[in-house]
């Protein structure tokens, strides 16, 4: 049984994404995500910024540093993240990659 056959459930397009705090540093990270993932969609509920993509979402240290105008350690992402959708497939010194394992 695949998810789409669950009774009463209407399957929609699959996405991955990150939910971030709506604060100063996170807003810079969101700008960087949007630059590096042109299909990224940004939405908001109070206090939370949600960024979603359909296939993968990559966060690049270099782009974040350009947006924040200071050095940024990828581990600092811990100060902004609230939740995520998908599987964190990579998190090294330069990149964070969120995607599902099957596409």
């Amino acid at each position, binding site marked *: 049984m695949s998810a789409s056959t*669950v009774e*009463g459930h209407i399957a*929609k397009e699959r996405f991955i994404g990150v939910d971030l705090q709506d604060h100063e540093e996170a807003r810079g990270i969101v700008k960087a995500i949007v630059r590096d993932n042109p299909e990224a969609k940004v939405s908001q509920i109070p206090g939370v910024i949600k960024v979603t993509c359909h296939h993968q979402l990559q966060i690049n240290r270099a782009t974040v540093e350009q947006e924040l105008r200071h050095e940024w350690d990828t581990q600092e992402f811990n100060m902004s993240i609230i939740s995520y959708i998908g599987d964190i497939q990579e998190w090294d010194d330069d990149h964070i990659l969120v995607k*599902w394992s*099957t596409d």
Partner: protein
Amino acid sequence: MARKLGLRETYAAMTRGVNWTPSYVKEEEAFPYHQFEGIKIHDWDKWEDPFRMTVDNYWKYQSEKDRRLYAVLDSFSQNQGHLNISDGRYLNAIKLFLQGVTPLEYMAHRHFMFIARYMPGPGTRMAALCQSIDELRHTQIEIHSMSPYNKYYSGFHSMRKMHDRVWYLSVPKSYFDDAVTAGPFEFLTAISFSFEYLLTNLLFVPFMSGAAYNGDLPTTTFGFSAQSDESRHMTLGLQVIKFLLEQDEANVPIVQRWLDKWFWRGYRLNSLVAAMMDYMLPKKVMSWKEAFELYFEQQMLDGLFPDLARYGIKPPMGVEQAIKEKEKISHETYWALYNFGFAAAFNTWIPTNSELDWMTEKYPATFDRYYRPRYEKAQKIVDENGRFFMLGLPQLCQVCQIPMIFTEPDDPGKICFRSSTYKAEKYHFCSDGCKQIFDWEPEKYVQSWLPVHEIYKGNCGGPSVPEVLDWYGIQPGDNGEYQGSVDQLNWASWHKDFAPV
């Protein structure tokens, strides 16, 4: 100068490099608890932790999170921020959170410390150790964050005692007690995967966003501070499932049954969250139904489960029923809290007309037909004879411990009753899901501490309502109707000089 190690290498050095094989004792003496559930692990080194959190980073970021939080708390109480929340009614959601969730954080702290000691894999141990410390931090910051309200509002004073005694709090308590009395892999599936990955967004994201929307800085700040840890916990949850499924095919049916059980148990627990979202936030962020569709149906069913399908894992038992219930569960739960509100350590009230209209809009298929008439009738009773309560004691589900308030999946007009007989004794359930869970492990659930039974057995302070409330630790003002309550009168008097909008 030596090259600085990268994140990947530092993490590997810490979790694998400093691990050792015991030589003074046998492996199974050092780690005696990970085999009795029938789970087969062949290579612990296959465990991955994408967060790659190392000890130095852990201290650094956690202390920074705490520094920010305490700056905000100081500022909040210095500014008498409690006066600036949307409405006094709002805090009842926070009372429910403090009474119901905070003690679970502490239980999580304790049991993750057990996992951190007894799992043979060093990556798993490190993740569990961090989570254990996180959960202790969460307990502390929740208590600190909510304590500014305790000075001014009722219901915040005895959360530990209440958690162990009050009827509706046996719902979260029994959930966690069930998990910590299971084996370590079931515990991780229950808490790390089913709760932290599958369902946590339903509790925390709308709850914290609701706090933000209702002007509750302390809750927002501890909430988001905790949520950044939860992201790590979600990763542990997803990792444990994938690890179990990849290690041995024989693990698949075991994991499937745990998923079936713990999805349903977690989902039932969330009915309190549903009531809170739809009824207890004066300014509403989204309806339970919308949250369920986004955070569960879209993110989990459409998102996660196709990834698990390749291992042979199916969406959990009861998911079809949960989908049907998204139109009903918040209304049925709050109605019960309203009716039995004399025995709750928070206040209840009839929604305002504009709130009823909001629910009509959000629940077009059910609200006007089934639920709105109840509240309009309740209002009429209040207007004519004052507030009423159901003073009898409700029958509880043997598994989820919620009163029998839920209706048949396809008929919102008919209460759903299920039962099983075990050793000549009859047991009652609110749903097929709870009945199934009982039938899988009847020996466990016949031992349930059911608040209503315990009252009848004389274990809760005495036979009369005042005696039970006293034993619960409920003080006058904590319980009952909001309109005219101590909190409402104080709120009105504190705001009487406020400028008109």
